[in-house]
């Protein structure tokens, strides 16, 4: 009998061949996943977009229905904010973020992906990870520093995460880390540009205040001057003055009248130069306008680890108003949301159309999930705190419109503002514009 050839000795059974083919298919799948992530990240410039891209990719790459990503904030060293989680209970995800932050603060390095069984983890992290059915924890590293943490659930196939899987995860998160860093730098740049524009607006505002001051001074000077002129006139009408006295009064009268004329000129100049910003009403598509606003504003807000989303009804939805002034109103409302919500919050702009007993409207809602406004403060929100006479100065920074001024502007454009809020649930500001 001839000895068996080497290839015959190594021939696999049919089930063995199946396993090898399955393994090859999984490896190909992994490679394609890495390529896709790399391509996708190269065009994404927003922390939330990057997170979605990363988690969708990792879930489909590793075959798990659970995933979450936290990022470190600037608020406190080691603090982590949950950016997204899937398949994890909300309260468990929040608690997990807390213990992961504790691990980072305790200087127990999480510098490479590890399974929950094998990692060097705080007991609290291990306990919560097991309770949340998390199988793998991995750092998002930038320049050797941990800027975030990713967790993944067990694989649906039941296969454990191999060393190669953990290396693939490391490679994926290395790309994600670089993208997040780039996004943050880009967002900072966008934010600086926006602040420059705001500073420009502030300067314009200061100019307005100067005009207002000038007007006030004029009024303050004119009133006593009118009284002086009036009494001098009485003196001139009255008998009993000698020629010299009359000469003095007439000279005083002449100078006072000149002074009054000069003040009048100053007043006219001040009124002429004051930017009264008339309303230029025109028709525009609110859906398109808000789309462009969202694209411009989202990166800056995402840079501060808050998410700005646009949930718009299909357009066009046309309204008649001053588009530039309306954007100013939207900006001041969004700015308020950013100011009064913690990091990790979500601010949603919704555009739709509504009809009520007052007419047909295009409605732009700005909703946040922040702390909300106490009920007793709601009625005062839209009261003007800055009178037209300028006796009080701006109370709110940024665009400085304030909700009260925004309400006045909306009214001037034939629309209105409505505010609803619930403590602990968030605030919804609705801007209604007359629909065309």
């Amino acid at each position, binding site marked *: 009998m001839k000895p068996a050839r080497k290839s015959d000795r190594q021939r696999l059974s049919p089930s063995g061949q199946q396993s090898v083919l399955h393994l090859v298919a999984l490896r190909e799948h992994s490679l394609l*996943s890495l390529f896709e*992530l790399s391509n*996708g990240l190269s065009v994404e410039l927003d922390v939330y*977009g990057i997170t*979605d*891209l990363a988690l*969708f990719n990792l*879930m489909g790459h590793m075959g798990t229905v659970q995933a979450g990503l936290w990022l470190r904030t600037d608020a406190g060293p080691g603090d982590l904010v949950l950016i997204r989680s899937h398949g994890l209970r909300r309260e468990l995800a929040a608690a997990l973020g807390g213990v992961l932050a504790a691990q980072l603060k305790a200087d127990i390095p999480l510098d490479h992906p590890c399974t929950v069984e094998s990692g060097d983890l705080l007991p609290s992290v291990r306990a919560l990870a097991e309770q949340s059915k998390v199988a793998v924890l991995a750092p998002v590293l930038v320049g050797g520093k941990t800027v975030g943490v990713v967790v993944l659930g067990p*694989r649906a196939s039941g296969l454990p995460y191999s060393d190669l899987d953990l290396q693939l995860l490391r490679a994926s998160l290395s790309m994600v880390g670089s993208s997040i860093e780039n996004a943050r730098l880009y967002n900072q740049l966008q934010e600086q540009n926006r602040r420059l524009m705001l500073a420009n607006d502030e300067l314009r505002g200061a100019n307005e205040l100067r005009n207002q001051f000038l007007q006030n001074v004029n009024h303050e000077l004119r009133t006593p001057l009118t009284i002086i002129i009036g009494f001098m006139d009485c003196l001139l009408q009255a008998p009993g003055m000698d020629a010299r006295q009359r000469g003095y009064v007439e000279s005083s009268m002449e100078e006072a009248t000149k002074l009054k004329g000069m003040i009048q000129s100053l007043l006219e100049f001040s009124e002429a130069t004051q930017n009264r910003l008339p309303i230029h009403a025109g028709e525009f598509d609110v859906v398109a306008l808000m789309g462009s606003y969202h694209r411009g504003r989202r990166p800056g807000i995402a840079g501060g680890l808050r998410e700005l989303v646009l*949930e718009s009804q299909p357009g066009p939805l046309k309204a008649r108003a001053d588009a530039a002034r309306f954007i100013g109103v939207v900006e001041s409302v969004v700015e308020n949301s950013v100011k009064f919500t913690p990091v990790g919050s979500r601010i949603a702009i919704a555009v739709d159309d509504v009809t009520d007993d007052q007419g047909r409207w295009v409605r732009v809602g700005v909703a946040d999930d922040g702390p909300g406004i106490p009920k007793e403060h709601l009625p005062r929100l839209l009261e003007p705190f800055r009178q037209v006479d300028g006796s009080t100065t701006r109370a709110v920074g940024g665009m400085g419109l304030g909700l009260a001024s925004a309400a006045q502007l909306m009214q001037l454009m034939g629309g209105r503002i409505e505010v609803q809020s619930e403590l602990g649930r968030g605030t919804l500001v609705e801007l209604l514009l007359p629909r065309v």
Partner: protein
Amino acid sequence: MAHDLVIERAQGDSTCDVLRLTGRIDARSASHLIEECRQTLVAGRHLVLNLAGVTFLSSSGIGTLLVLSERFDEIGKTVSFASASDLVRSSIELLSLETFLRFHDSEDEARRKLAA
């Protein structure tokens, strides 16, 4: 992001919307698909995604389908996937994820199951 996925809204019924997909479900088209499904989510209706015209399902595409299923589950509704090609189904089966996604052989079958 430029993408290769065409989404056509087909005639649904009182409880269920139907979207017919043609092209690739991947990282580029994920947000477009989620945005189209959002309208059904907001309206609190079931959804059938007809995948007959889907030629490629990437890892990110799989992740997108999983997240969509989770979002519909959260509001007590269902998203079903109909008429997926062997290629699409094999991508899901490779990862043993078929138990997390409701697949049906045809759009009609998916709608019948939802109505039941």
